[in-house]
């Protein structure tokens, strides 16, 4: 029982690690103040769930989840290219709201509020994952590969350009670099891995509905990235472990289930506020976002 529970937590940690590190690529490394990351994750989850429900193999589901999310990521940067800071945040929140409305209202595609049940477990090369231990091994491997790729990117010359763009877009342009292209590419990388994480989540939980990706879920992600520290990959990993464990541990107390959701959000909000007040750069952060 406890063992199963720990495996469950570990799987969530792996998924959230990919999710939050990808968020940090956009938010911390490139300074794109976006609140649409949960929407991109949801787009990945829906893409993968719909494809596999239509009979396509899991591998095409998860890869297209990344690709479709990346396309939406590009669309997001393109439409908001003139905005910065708070205005950018508001516009991306609008994007998230539109994504939610589509998920809930396009019932022909998404079944609306009924959600999509019976999403199959991942299968690769004819081998279908059965137990949660296998699932853990699989998400762990995907997480390691994803983080290795993102780590390599932020440490590369391109990563340096992302950070320069965050600090001063005009400065980057004056040095002959196309700041929009840098932001677009960074957002697409970030969105791609959010889509991958969304797909993993859908295939693990096996049921998704629009509420899973509601706007308020961004608080969870912000907490992870800000507590861990902007522009720090290790920070986001630590943040993901911390937030997932704290969030789930509540279930061990005998709280009525109606209280669990709200009290989680209260805990995240308090955590977020404390960090912002007393340690604005988070545990391992290197930069101030604002």
């Amino acid at each position, binding site marked *: 029982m406890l063992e199963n529970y720990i495996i469950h937590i570990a799987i969530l940690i792996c998924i959230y690690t990919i999710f939050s590190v990808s968020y940090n690529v956009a938010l911390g490394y490139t300074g794109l103040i976006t609140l649409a990351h949960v929407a991109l994750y949801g787009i990945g989850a829906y893409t993968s769930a719909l494809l596999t429900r239509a009979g396509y193999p899991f591998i095409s589901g998860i890869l297209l989840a990344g690709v479709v999310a990346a396309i939406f990521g590009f669309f997001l940067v393109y439409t908001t290219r003139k905005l910065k800071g708070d205005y950018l945040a508001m516009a991306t929140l609008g994007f998230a709201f539109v994504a939610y409305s589509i998920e809930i209202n396009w019932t022909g595609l998404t079944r609306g509020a009924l959600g999509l049940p019976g999403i199959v477990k991942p299968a690769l090369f004819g081998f279908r994952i059965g137990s949660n231990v296998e699932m853990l091994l699989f998400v762990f491997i995907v997480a390691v590969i994803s983080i290795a790729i993102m780590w*390599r*990117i932020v440490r*590369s*010359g*391109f*990563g*340096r*350009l992302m*950070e*320069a763009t*965050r*600090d*001063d877009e*005009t*400065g*980057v*342009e*004056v*040095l*002959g*670099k*196309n*700041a929009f*292209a*840098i932001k677009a*590419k960074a957002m697409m*990388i970030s969105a791609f891995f959010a889509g991958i994480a969304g797909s993993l989540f859908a295939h693990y939980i096996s049921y998704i509905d629009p509420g899973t990706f509601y706007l308020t879920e961004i608080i969870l992600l912000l907490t992870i990235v800000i507590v861990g520290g902007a*522009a720090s990959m290790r920070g986001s990993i630590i943040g993901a472990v911390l937030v997932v464990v704290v969030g789930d541990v509540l279930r061990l107390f005998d709280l009525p289930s109606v209280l669990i959701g709200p009290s989680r959000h209260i805990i995240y909000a308090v955590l977020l506020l404390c960090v912002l007040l007393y340690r604005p750069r988070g545990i391992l952060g*290197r*930069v101030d976002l604002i």
Partner: protein
Amino acid sequence: MLIKNVFKRFGGVKALQGCSLEIEKGKITALIGPNGSGKSTLFNAISALITKDRGKIELEGEDISRMVGYKIAKKGISRTFQEVRLFKHLTIRDHLQIAISDDESLIKSFLVFDGISDKRIQEVLDRVHLDKPLGTFVTDLSYGQRKLLDLAIAIAKPHTLLMLDEPVAGVNPRLRKVIKEVLVRLSKEGETLLIIEHDMNFVMDLADVVYVLDEGRVIAHGKPKTIQKNKKVLDAYLGE
């Protein structure tokens, strides 16, 4: 480079009113004028950080008036700002890596590990006499050191024209001399320089040609010696 009849208004402020200049290759051209005469605005118009209302700008015979900022920079214009402008979370090394490399490819930088060598970066720093470890964050530099780094970045970025907005503003006399020597050496090596300077004395023995701006117009240009005696110029400065 040719600047023809550039106009720019900010609301009611006529910052540039038909400004025309010709910058000769291999020479030091100085742009002087009282506060608010439109010198920095002209720089911003050239590098397309602001859109001009009218006017044409040619670089080596090519019309760059309608190009976007980063393309103009790629064409060979390197510039500094009046207020030192650096990436606040990056190190000296990062800055020069970005300045020297003209590569912004994601895939290439993903696959290839080496960037610009530290040796090459050190050479640029030596030119401007900035003696600081490459890993130093720019927030840990003094004002003078930041000014030197800013200059080093502009020099290191591939360019055919170097535009400096008040390179010695706010620095001590010793550093002023250092910077002046750097500029003289650049010019000897054949660089084309356009330098904004507030202080007439600084440019007198440095510049080959001086343009004087007042209220967004060129009121005089020529050799420093003749400019110094020009009555209109003296009036503009005294009336400040």
